[in-house]
């Protein structure tokens, strides 16, 4: 007895040490992958050097003009797409014909107002747009990531120029401005409002209006400001939440219409009014990409003096053509606003501006000629001050500039040539803009290649680690790996540091140098012990062995899937249709499973029928899930989106809350393990949480569709109901669900629930000779003939409870159809596990690949696509009204990557499902490591392939639309999968379940 306990304690300790070794090795491996991804990203995502020269009026070239306007009101209506502001005949859409004032003024008072189509540069996110709209420069893609903590702007811009010229800037609205321009805004007239809560349509807008009108009407207050900036967010938020075609959009646009009318009444004669959108929105109401709907926005300028010229030629040439939603309407670039505003207000043009003054705003061609000459000089100054040799030495542009200067000096007095001079200036500006665009789309090939090679090396290592070396050998090598990795990365640091100090490579920063050294050191460190133990020949032999001995039709299928999935990144069409491809592969697996099971004569009839039923379940569920989709823009007419919150999807949530626990229960029943912990989890916990989820989304649906308003209660009560009661109820539900599922249930699980039952009623001799004596020792001697129900699936049944915990949280953060898809994922996983057990695919290549494909399929069917606009930002505010560090981010991660998290959690089940307790837990652990690292291998191969092809297609037309977002998704997934597998799956899950079972049964 004593000997037994010591032995088991020693074994327990050994298990812990082995586990720790694995944990650290994988942690180091993850950091190697992170380093390689960071290198690739740094090389690929564009960066632009920003000259920090500030223009001023004392400069000879920049000598300021006399201001034409004393004051200006700049009103930004976020996401005001161009067709919102023009009349669209016969359109019944909520977003059409509800904001008529701009076009009315444009046609009725052509000398006082002008309405133009305003083309944004991608990326169409508010922060980037504000930068472009004030500096006149092009933002780069990398800036897009900082939208959520907008950093201060240090480039020359017209808000800064206003400040430098002692003008007082008043601001109200979206706090992105506050983040960018805090220093330049008059602190007494600064009214920022939180911008990112897309569920709130009115706070920002009402805040703007509250502060705007007093500043206009009150003569005392109106003398306090020179430029007033207001930024409305309602339209954008409605778009994000409901899409453009929703009745609230009509109300919002009508409100904007009234407010603009009021502002026009209240403003005085020397004021310029600018109303504009910063970007548009696509048909789902989102933005960020570069489709024409997202780029096309509105610019409207108005003054009470007759100051503008409506060029008659343009009217004749039908430049203001509103037919076909204004497709042929005259367009100006967003950056053109910058020189225009600067010149009209008598400010120097910001140094980095690339735009050109807008024709209509200068009363005659003569003035226009003057200002365009000025802008051309400014652009040339920017070119000459650039720290990029290529810009300075561009001969074509230099010649054009010299030609223009000489001609201007000769002909500027002559009226005949003014329009020619203007067009030369325009072409100079245009060429320069295009040149800068092409130049800033520049890639650092050194970093790209280095990152790729590190990733490729990490792939070769993880492939060897997971599949070539026998898993039992791997378990003994952990500490060798650790030693050599640490030593080699230290050596790498020292070497790279000395290289940096001695050679001083001029275009390499210290951190890059160090990271590179660590990366190379780690790769060598990982390979040293392998090379020490095995030869290259032996490893190659292993691969041949795989093809000769372990190769069957299932591994062949796995290989085909692997190759095809990697090859999709070679073609933009396949990247677009990845969602269909994943479902196609999965259904094919299921159908092949049916054939295989049906023709397998060795298994008894009963389990064959059961197996066929599992396959059928798998195929049918896969097919049903594949019908839930969100279309990306490129899929065009071939795709019909079904991912909407509808009454039936909400109803199905309730049905699911009842049935899903029953389905899982039936799977547990198959292994006779629906005992003790399982009913507690399923019947009380999971069903309760699912019901709460359903309630949440029911309230959400009712709230969205104005069902409370339709009840005809008194208005104040309705208001109270929707704004206070329902809102706090929803917050409470979501917080409770997340707390229970992520904290409470996981704590409970960590105490080690087992789904077994000791059956005393059956006193016949136990067939399992191993279990009964062990058991009797634990329970005392009085019932030596007890059987343990659920013995054969002891690891799996307990471990799956952990998967359920996370599934409940993920289902809350997914929208109704997404939650249904996640429910399908659970069923898919369970039926795959049964199929796998029957077909003996535990060690087969296909298992991790099917798991990976399951994750991808459900990523798409939970309403996501590999594009930035498809991120469901609105779920960020599920648990909190505004952004609060962990909660908002947790929601977004759970929503976006829920399927991947679940699959990463469930992958050890391939080894653990239907396995009776063993007294060799280390062997089980090493198999679990092998299967989890196989999943990492799969994802690494995908990342590698997508990185290679994205780098290869870096000049492709579709790179920013299709390839780059997909590569970013893969990069994020690579990190996420590593983190989830290491910390949650292995450290929390597998470790607990193995040591718990070992403690009780391992003797």
């Amino acid at each position, binding site marked *: 007895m004593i000997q037994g306990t010591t032995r088991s304690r020693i074994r327990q300790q050994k298990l812990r040490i082995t586990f720790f070794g694995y944990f650290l090795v994988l942690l180091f491996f993850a950091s190697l992958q992170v380093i390689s991804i960071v290198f690739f990203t740094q090389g690929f995502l564009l960066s632009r050097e920003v000259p920090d020269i500030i223009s001023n009026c004392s400069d000879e070239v920049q000598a300021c003009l006399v201001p034409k306007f004393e004051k200006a009101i700049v009103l930004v209506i976020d996401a005001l797409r161009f067709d919102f502001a023009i009349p669209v005949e016969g359109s019944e859409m909520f977003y059409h014909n509800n904001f008529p004032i701009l076009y009315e003024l444009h046609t009725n008072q052509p000398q006082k107002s002008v309405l133009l189509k305003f083309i944004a540069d991608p990326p169409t996110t508010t922060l980037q747009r504000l930068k472009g709209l004030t500096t006149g420069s092009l933002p780069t893609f990398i800036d897009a990531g900082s939208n959520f903590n907008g950093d201060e702007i240090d480039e020359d811009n017209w808000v800064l120029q206003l400040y430098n010229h002692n003008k007082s800037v008043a601001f109200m609205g979206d706090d992105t401005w506050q983040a960018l321009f805090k220093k330049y805004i008059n602190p007494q007239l600064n009214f920022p409002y939180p911008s990112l809560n897309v569920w709130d349509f009115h706070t920002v807008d009402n805040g703007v209006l509250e502060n705007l009108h007093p500043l206009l009407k009150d003569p005392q207050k109106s003398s306090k400001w020179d430029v007033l900036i207001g930024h409305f967010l309602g339209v954008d938020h409605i778009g994000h939440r409901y899409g453009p075609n929703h009745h609230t959009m009509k109300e919002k646009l009508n409100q904007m219409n009234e407010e603009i009318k009021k502002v026009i009444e209240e403003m005085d004669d020397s004021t310029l009014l600018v109303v504009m959108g910063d970007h548009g929105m696509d048909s789902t109401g989102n933005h960020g990409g570069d489709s024409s709907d997202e780029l096309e926005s509105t610019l409207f300028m108005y003054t009470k003096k007759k100051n503008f010229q409506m060029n008659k030629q343009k009217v004749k040439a039908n430049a203001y053509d509103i037919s076909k939603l204004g497709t042929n309407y005259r367009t100006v670039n967003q950056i053109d606003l910058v020189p225009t505003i600067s010149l009209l207000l008598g400010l120097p043009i910001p140094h980095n501006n690339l735009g050109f003054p807008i024709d209509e705003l200068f009363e005659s061609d003569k003035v226009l000629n003057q200002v365009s000459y000025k802008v051309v000089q400014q652009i040339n100054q920017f070119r000459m001050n650039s720290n990029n040799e290529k810009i300075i030495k561009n001969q074509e542009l230099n010649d054009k500039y010299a030609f223009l200067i000489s001609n201007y000096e000769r002909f500027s007095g002559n009226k005949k040539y003014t329009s020619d001079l203007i067009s030369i200036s325009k072409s100079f500006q245009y060429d320069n803009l295009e040149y800068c665009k092409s130049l800033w789309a520049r890639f650092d090939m050194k970093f790209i290649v280095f990152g790729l090679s590190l990733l490729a090396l990490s792939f070769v290592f993880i492939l060897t680690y997971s599949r070539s070396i026998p898993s039992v050998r791997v378990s003994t090598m952990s500490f060798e790996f650790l030693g050599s990795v640490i030593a080699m990365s230290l050596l790498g640091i020292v070497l790279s540091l000395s290289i940096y100090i001695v050679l001083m490579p001029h275009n390499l920063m210290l951190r890059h140098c160090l990271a590179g050294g660590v990366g190379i050191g780690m790769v060598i460190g990982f390979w040293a012990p392998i090379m020490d133990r095995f030869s290259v020949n032996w490893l190659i032999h292993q691969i041949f062995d795989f093809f000769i001995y372990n190769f069957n039709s299932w591994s062949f299928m796995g290989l085909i899937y692997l190759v095809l999935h990697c090859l999709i990144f070679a073609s933009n*069409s396949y990247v677009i249709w990845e969602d269909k491809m994943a479902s196609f592969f999965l259904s094919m697996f299921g159908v092949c499973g049916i054939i295989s099971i049906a*023709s397998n004569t060795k298994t008894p009839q009963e389990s064959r029928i059961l197996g066929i039923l599992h396959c059928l379940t798998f195929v*049918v569920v896969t*097919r049903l899930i594949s019908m839930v989709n969100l279309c990306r823009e490129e899929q065009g007419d071939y795709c019909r989106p079904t991912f909407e919150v509808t009454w039936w999807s909400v109803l199905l949530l309730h049905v699911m809350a009842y049935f899903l626990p029953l389905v899982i229960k039936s799977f547990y029943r198959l292994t006779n393990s629906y005992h003790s912990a399982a009913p507690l989890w399923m019947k009380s916990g999971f069903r309760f949480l699912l019901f709460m989820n359903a309630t949440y989304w029911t309230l959400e649906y009712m709230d969205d569709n104005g069902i409370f308003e339709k009840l005809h209660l008194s208005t104040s009560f309705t208001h109270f109901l929707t704004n206070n009661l329902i809102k706090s109820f929803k917050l409470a539900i979501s917080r409770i669900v997340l707390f229970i599922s992520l904290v409470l249930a996981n704590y409970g699980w960590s105490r080690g629930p087992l789904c077994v039952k000791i059956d005393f009623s059956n006193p016949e001799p136990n067939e399992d000779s191993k279990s009964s004596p062990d058991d009797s020792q634990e329970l005392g001697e009085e019932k030596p003939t007890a059987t343990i129900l659920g013995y054969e699936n002891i690891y799996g049944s307990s471990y799956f409870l952990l998967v359920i915990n996370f599934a409940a949280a993920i289902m809350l953060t997914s929208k109704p159809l997404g939650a249904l898809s996640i429910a399908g994922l659970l069923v898919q996983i369970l039926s795959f596990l049964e199929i796998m057990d029957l077909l003996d695919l535990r060690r087969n290549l296909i298992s991790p690949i099917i798991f990976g494909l399951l994750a991808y399929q459900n990523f798409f069917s939970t309403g996501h696509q590999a594009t930035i606009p498809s991120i469901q930002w609105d779920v960020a505010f599920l648990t909190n009204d505004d952004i609060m560090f962990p909660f908002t981010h947790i929601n977004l991660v759970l929503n976006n990557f829920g399927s991947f998290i679940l699959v990463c959690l469930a992958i050890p089940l391939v080894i653990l499902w239907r396995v009776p307790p063993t007294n060799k837990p280390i062997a089980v652990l090493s198999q679990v490591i092998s299967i989890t690292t196989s999943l990492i291998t799969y994802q690494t191969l995908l990342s590698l392939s997508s990185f290679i092809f994205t780098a290869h297609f870096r000049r492709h037309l579709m790179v920013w639309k299709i390839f780059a977002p997909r590569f970013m998704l893969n990069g994020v997934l690579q990190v996420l999968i590593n983190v989830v597998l290491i910390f949650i799956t292995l450290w929390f899950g597998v470790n607990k379940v193995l040591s718990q079972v070992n403690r009780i049964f391992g003797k």
Partner: protein
Amino acid sequence: MPKQKRKVKFDHDDTEDQEAVVVARVPTIIHKWATIPYHLPLILVGMFKFGLTSHVKQTLVKGYISLICLQAVHSYILYINTVDFPDSSSGKKHRKKNKDNLVLLIASSLVLPVLMSPAVLAILVLLGAPVSSHVIETYLLAAHLSTVVATPLLVTFKLNFANFVSVFKSPDLFCVVCHHQTLSSGLLALVGTWIGVLPIPLDWDRPWQAWPVTLVVGTYIGFFGGSVINLAL
């Protein structure tokens, strides 16, 4: 030809003593060059000539009618070139010398696939064929697929389902399938249909990327190619 026959038998002998293995009772085809479905590429080319890419449905119907007619001729050629598996256990009634009702056999081999096609349609939908639209096209694909694949199989096995199932139960399934002309062509036709999906997503905007066209092409080429490749084995 005899070489192949011997090989199949050899494999059986090899495994027979280990356990009671089901023997693949596969009929043998004697003149493989004669049983190549020469009509399939003809029909395919004909369908393209008659505007498969512009009027998908109509052309598929026309093609199906001609397929049925030519399949009947092919069935006859296949029938006279088939020698039943000389096995006593499966009963002697399927010996070639026994007078089968030729007309009934060919007729039922042609009708059964038509009856099967709804089931094939269901499988296609399960595998991802569109549900809400293009149902008729998918059904026509199912009809073509089942007639091209199943008719020769039914004729070869003389409607003996047990013999057909025995193929799947044999331990060297792939060997048996690869060395038999009709079986391997049938498998390649299915693979061809599977691969036929792959070019559809490409953004080339060609008319032949319309829904079932590439799959039908895959089926025809798969079956024809399979029987040609089998000559070499």
